[in-house]
Structure formats: structure tokens, C-alpha cells
């Protein structure tokens, strides 16, 4: 496979830069639409169904509304940081998508040999923007939210990486093309525990579902973006769903064989999109069902539950890789049994979070 399929480097760069930006914008719009539509049946209502057929233009209407809003900067805010934060939050999404192959060998950087490592490194950058926003807004709710964001991100990065390493061990490569090629059976079946840990940590990373502590609208109102309006707020909104898009795309590549699927190889991109969307629907389901965790419970869940399980998962996968020349399909049953027993054990002896703190009044 040649490095620049379109011969000319600049033509390739220009084409894929446009593709990525369009993909992010369209993907986010699709996500917002799918989520709001899916919330309807979950909550015994219709969801948006007025703007366009089946409400399909609702994200467009939202975008127009948000663009027309006045941009307000608080009086005592740190103006430059306040201005820069939405950009810093949004940038990692584009940077990650630069190395995500939409099809075998098709991407801005088609085959980065340290692809997954790069993704992990860059995805941790978003929290810097969140902290900047929380700090610069000069609002106590934002600051609490920023602190929560830092704590959660740092904790959940570790099980996230450990669960990815399990996949890397089996395929023996950090390149995403090789990982997809290395799938004998989809990895969400081969390493179910790793997939679960990845999904849960990713949900915390992208600030969704029961882990949306840094937004927590019933406690700290909206958290870090409470003082943002207009286009800056739209950037945060875009970034939130963009992160979800990126994470589900990574999950589709790591655990669902990416673009591989039945049918002609030309519809590989379609398979990739369908799998990405499927993971997102799972995320929607969790978000709409569960109440939120408390901050100490969130940390306990990361360090006492996910972290040891990720280590054991890594140990089991590593042992299998060393002991067996090529991973046979029946390993799947071993891994399922291991996952089942471990989760059962931990849920029996694991207590979620602490209790009352004695305070001197």
C-alpha cells in the first residue's frame, strides 16, 4: 500500500481535510438528531418531528438558532482563555480523525504505525480545554466542574489504555489497519471484559451517560460551559458530540472489525459508519436510563473496579497470546467465563464510594 494514494501529497491533504471537517459536522448533526429522536420512544414521547420530514432538519434549526445568539463574555472572565477554550476542546477531534482510517488505507494519514498510541495521547488533550473554560469563566460552578473533569479524565484514562493494550497484544501492532486486519473474530466477543472496560471508560472520557459529572445539570447547572453562549457554546456542543463520534469510531475499529463486513468491499465505509452508529446508540441507551454517580463513587469505580479488572484482563490476554501460537476461536468461551466470574466477584465485594465525612463546624 502506498503512503499517499492520491499521488500528489497536497491533493490528498486537501481532499481529506475537507472530508474530515464535513464528516465531523455531518456526523455531529446526525448524532444529535439520532439522540433526540431516540430519546422520544425511550421517554414515551415523539422527539423532534416538526422541522423537515421526521424532524430531520432539527439540528440545522438548532445550529441557526445558536449562531444568532449574542456572544456574552462575563465581566471578570479571563478573556483570552475564555475565547481559546472552545477551540482547544474541539481541536483534538480533528486531530484524532486525521489518523482514523475510514476504509483500509484511506485517511488523511492512511496508515500511521503508532495510530492507537497517538489517539490515546491526543484524546487526553480535550480536558485541557475544559479546565481552561472552567477556570476562565470565573464561576464557582465551572470551577467545580473543571476539577471534576480533571479527576475523572485522569482516572479513566488508565483503564481505557489498559483495555486497548489487550487488543494490541493480540494483533501485535499499534496501527489501526493492522488491528482491523488482525481480527479473526470481532474483539468484542474475543475479549468481552476488555470491551466493557473500554466502553465504560470511554463514556466517562466523553462525558456521557451516568458519568456526566462535569455537566451535571441538576447539581452544577451546566458545569464548565455555564458562562458560554452563542457560537462558543456551539463549539462545546460540537465537541461533546464530536468526542462521542471519535470514541465510537475508535471502538468500531478496535472491537468491531472496522470496515470489514459482508458485501462488496466498496461498502466498507458504510459498515464502518453503521458500526459507529451502533455503539453510539448503546451510549444513548445508557444515558437515558441511569441516574448519575457521585464524584467519590465515580473515582472508586475507576480505581477499585475498572483498574484491577483491566489489569487481570491484560494478564489473561497476555497469557493466551504467549501460550497459543494463533488465538483459536474457543478462547472466546474462556474469556467470557473469566469476565463473568470477575464481574460477579467484584460486584459482590466491591462497595461503591465512601459515606459521610466528619466535618468540624
Amino acid at each position, binding site marked *: 500500500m502506498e503512503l499517499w494514494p492520491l499521488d500528489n501529497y497536497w491533493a490528498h491533504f486537501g481532499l481529506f481535510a475537507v472530508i474530515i471537517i464535513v464528516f465531523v459536522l455531518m456526523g455531529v448533526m446526525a448524532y444529535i438528531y439520532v439522540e433526540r429522536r431516540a*430519546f422520544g420512544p*425511550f*421517554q*414515551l*414521547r415523539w422527539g423532534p418531528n416538526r422541522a423537515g420530514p421526521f424532524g430531520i432538519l432539527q439540528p440545522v434549526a438548532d445550529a441557526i438558532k445558536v449562531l444568532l445568539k449574542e456572544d456574552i463574555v462575563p465581566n471578570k472572565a479571563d478573556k483570552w482563555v475564555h475565547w481559546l477554550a472552545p477551540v482547544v476542546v474541539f481541536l483534538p477531534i480533528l486531530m484524532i480523525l486525521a489518523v482514523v482510517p475510514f476504509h483500509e488505507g484511506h485517511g488523511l494519514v492512511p496508515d500511521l504505525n503508532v495510530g492507537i498510541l497517538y489517539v490515546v495521547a491526543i484524546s487526553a488533550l480535550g480536558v485541557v480545554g475544559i479546565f481552561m473554560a472552567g477556570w476562565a469563566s470565573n464561576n*464557582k*460552578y465551572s470551577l*467545580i466542574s473543571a476539577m471534576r473533569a480533571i479527576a475523572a479524565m485522569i482516572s479513566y484514562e488508565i483503564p481505557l489504555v489498559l483495555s486497548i493494550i489487550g487488543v494490541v497484544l493480540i494483533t501485535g501492532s499499534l496501527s489501526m489497519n493492522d488491528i482491523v486486519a488482525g481480527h479473526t473474530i470481532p474483539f468484542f466477543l474475543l475479549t468481552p471484559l476488555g470491551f466493557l472496560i473500554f466502553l465504560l471508560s470511554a463514556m466517562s472520557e466523553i462525558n456521557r451517560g*451516568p458519568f*456526566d459529572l462535569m455537566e*451535571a*445539570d*441538576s*447539581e*452544577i*447547572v451546566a458545569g464548565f460551559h455555564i458562562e458560554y453562549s452563542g457560537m462558543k457554546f456551539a463549539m462545546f456542543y460540537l465537541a461533546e458530540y464530536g468526542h462521542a463520534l471519535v470514541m465510537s469510531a475508535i471502538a468500531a475499529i478496535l472491537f468491531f472489525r472496522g470496515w470489514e463486513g459482508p458485501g462488496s468491499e466498496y461498502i466498507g465505509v458504510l459498515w464502518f459508519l453503521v458500526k459507529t452508529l451502533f455503539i453510539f446508540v448503546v451510549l444513548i441507551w445508557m*444515558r*437515558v*436510563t*441511569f*441516574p*448519575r*454517580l*457521585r*464524584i*467519590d*463513587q465515580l473515582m472508586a469505580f475507576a480505581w477499585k473496579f475498572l483498574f484491577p479488572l483491566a489489569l487481570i484482563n491484560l494478564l489473561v490476554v497476555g497469557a493466551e497470546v504467549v501460550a497459543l501460537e494463533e488465538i483459536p476461536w474457543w478462547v472466546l468461551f474462556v474469556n467470557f467465563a473469566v469476565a463473568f466470574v470477575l464481574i460477579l466477584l467484584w460486584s459482590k465485594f466491591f462497595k*461503591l*464510594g465512601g*459515606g*459521610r*465525612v*466528619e*466535618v468540624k*463546624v
Partner: protein
Amino acid sequence: MEVKTEPFILNMGPQHPSTHGVFRMRVTFDGEVVVDMEPIFGYLHRGIEKLAETRTYAQFIPLTDRLFYLASMAQNHPYVLAVEKLADIPVPERAEYLRVIMDELMRISSHLMAVGFFTNDLGCSVFTPLLYMYREREKILDLFEMVCGQRLTYNYMRVGGLSQDVPQEFMPALKRFVAEMPGFIDEYDQLLAENEILLARTKGVGILPRELAINASASGPVLRASGVKWDIRKADPYSVYDRFDFDIPTGEVGDNYDRYRVRIEEMRQSLRILNQAIEQLPEGEVRAKVPHLLRPPAGEAYGRIETPQGELGFYLVSDNSIAPYRLHVRAPSLINLTALRDMVVGWKLADAIATFGSIDICVAEVDR
């Protein structure tokens, strides 16, 4: 190593999504831990007690609707009870039964809202449980709309009875509702009470000890969740409550989970009462002959009932004129709220919000 931290004060409210109106908590935090909490009331003070002095006895009934507006039907009842005591007006039996039916329907509706908003405060922030609760509440509101044409502020009860008899289609609809409601309550209970996150967030959190609950003069589900078997329907039966067979559910430790539990159980007990009331409902008048301009003899009276929130009492003083000389409302939400500080100190920010939500207040009633 001890990290030196500095507490900071956060004003939660009056504009905050989880303060159920314009309630304000001035909370001192040490990181995420609540060190001190001061509830501040009065943003919705409308002087309802003073307004009563400028209105006739009948004219004040619509204002009682504006106290706890999610349970307006139950707010009418203690006021008319107090006036009836004051003027010594007998109430027809059919009206008494219909009042009980309305009170219990209101209790189910109000508890649905209490549990729904409680889960909302716990962080089901996309409203899913609440919207399920709304489905059942809609049916109750439809029933109320049949009897009085209103869906929020009913103004249905009158001194000496009710404004009108229930229409023909009311009883079949009520029977249908009572028959299908237990299934829905079981459904909610299964979905919520077996959710690990909900259990982790509510069990042992925000404990109101038994002694403190009694000393704070708490009432309603908040008191009963702390293990005190006190319900005015049994302790001081008004209307026709002594003719019904029902239990008083109580909690054990008085944490958020117990308050949730008690509300779910009370809905089941309300359905039991409704079933019996439908069976026993007599025919007849629904309104006694009462003069248009009531001039009760000089004196005082206190009417109290068990509303969904607790003991709601109206204390009336008459000087034999057409308007009350003085009216005082004993608002259960306000009195239940006084113990809030002891319940939340030492817990986290998220627990403070959840505990506050578990008390089930309405600022319109707290501030009056």
C-alpha cells in the same frame, strides 16, 4: 500529609434547576463536601395569610390552591375543614367520600411527582423516570378535569361540601384507573429500586434520625421514613377516614431511600383506600345549605389533614365578620425543611441536592 484547603461559599439558588422553585441554599463547601448549609426562604412570599383577612371565607378557597400547586386538591380540604369547624356546618356524607377520593388521587399524583423529581435530582437529567410518572399523572389530571374543569388549580371543595357532584363518566374512569395503577407502581418500583446506581446514591444518605425528626416537628413521609408511625388519617381521623382499612408504611433509618420507599408504599395504600371508598360511596347531596355570606361566630378553629407532604393546618380566628380576623397556615414543607442542614452536612454536593429533593417541597407553600 495534610493538604490545606479553604472552604468556599456557593449560593445555590434562587435560580438553580434543582431547587424546585426559588429556594436558595447558601452552602459552604470544602472541596465537594458540604461543611455548612443555610436555607434562605422568602423569594416567593405573596402574603397569602394577610390576603385572607381582606377576603370572605369563600373567596379565600382559590388562594389555597396556590400553596402546593402539585397537590392543590389537598390544600382546599384543611381550609374548608377549619371553616366548617368554625361555623359548625355539617357536610353531606357523599361529599365526605368524594373528598377522600380526591385527596387520595392527589396523594398518588403528588407522590409520583415527588419520586420523579427526586430521580431527576439524582441525575436522571434527561427526565426519563419523570416522564413515565407524568403518564400516570395525566390520567389523574383527566379525572380532575372531569369533576372541576381544571388541571392544576382545582378550587373544587366548598364550605359545606363540593362545588358540584362528579359527572356520570367519572366513576367508570376512576375504576379503570384504580384497576390498572398497581401494575404501573410495580413497574416503577422494579425499574428504580433494583437499580444499583440509585441504591448506591440513596441508601444511608441524608439520614434524618428519629429523635431529630420528632424534635423538628416533621410530618408526612419525611417523618414516617424515620420510623415514626404518625399519620393524621389514623391519629386524628377527619372526614370519613376512620371507616377505611389501610396501613401506615414506615421506614427504618430515615435515609433518602426510605423516603422514596415510603412514598411508593403510600401510593399502594392510597389505592386500597380508593377501592374501599368507591365501594362505600353513598348517593345524595354533595353540598349543605350554606349562606352566601358566611358570618361564623367569634372564636377560633384549626383544621388539619394529612396532605402528601405532611400535616397541613389552617388556623382561623373569627370576629363574627365576613372575613377571617387572622389566618395562619402550618406548611409541612417549611417545617420539614428546617432539618435539612443536619441531613446534608458532611455529604457531597450531589447528595445535598438529592436530599433536598427527597423532602418534596414546593416553594409556593414554604414562602406562602
